[in-house]
């Protein structure tokens, strides 16, 4: 923020070069970290693969890497379909139901039932957890009143 008008040209030049700099920084940082950020960890992917195969099965590193790529493509593919549905329905947030719907729309019907069950269970747990937190917070406040008779002693909640 420049107070004086004297160095307007310099400020403008500085601001625009700063803008260019931050854009190129964003681009270069995204390309240097993109390898890590666009793939799921190979250890996790490899583990899931291994669990499904017989004990004596071996998986080449290349096969795991290919699988990493395929999974990311899968996520993008399904997300694209889900977000298109949201766009058409003028909703801004892609939710779990949209993802389930997109799976079916794209031919992954077999996945839909276990996913729906998984989502339902998750929602139940979240409601449970919210209720427990509420109960815990109420309990904590009461305890604090009992333990600390000095009113100015604020204990962490």
């Amino acid at each position, binding site marked *: 923020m420049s107070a004086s008008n004297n160095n307007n040209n310099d400020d403008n030049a500085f601001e625009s070069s700063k803008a260019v700099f931050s854009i190129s920084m964003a681009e270069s940082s995204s390309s240097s970290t993109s390898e890590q*950020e*666009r793939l*799921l*960890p190979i250890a*996790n992917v490899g*583990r*899931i*693969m291994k669990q*499904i*195969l017989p004990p*004596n*099965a*071996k*998986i*080449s590193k*290349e*096969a795991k*890497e*290919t*699988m990493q*790529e*395929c*999974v*990311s*493509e*899968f*996520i*993008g*593919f*399904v*997300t*694209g379909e889900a*977000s*298109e549905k*949201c766009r058409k329905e003028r909703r*801004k*947030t*892609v*939710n*779990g139901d*949209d*993802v*389930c719907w997109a*799976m079916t729309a*794209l*031919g*992954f019907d077999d*996945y839909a039932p*276990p*996913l729906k069950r*998984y*989502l339902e*269970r*998750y*929602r139940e*747990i979240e409601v449970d*957890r919210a209720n*427990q*937190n509420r109960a*815990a917070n109420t309990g904590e406040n009461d305890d604090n009143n009992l333990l600390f008779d000095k009113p100015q002693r604020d204990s962490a909640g």
Partner: protein
Amino acid sequence: MRQPGAYSNLLSGGKTGPHSLPLARIKKIMKKSGEDVKMISGEAPIVFSKACELFIEELTRRAWAMTLQRKTRTMHKEDVAAAVMETDIFDFLVGLVSHTPNPSATPES
């Protein structure tokens, strides 16, 4: 207040476990999929963590069938590629698996 045990299997949250795909990373990949993707609910990466597991399992099973055809016990990327080729719902992967970083390959225009 974190409640381990009850949730740790279901909610991966980056920790290792039976359902262990990092949610933050899934969310990043979702966001990169297109301009349209603005907001993502907390549940969506959770659903994907399970869906990706199912996907990996299916593709791995099919790839292993290819491996066995070669009468070997080591899965190679060609097996994954072959599984993609023979499965309709994996059509979206055809470009990806046939895209070998091969200097002799002619680039697509």
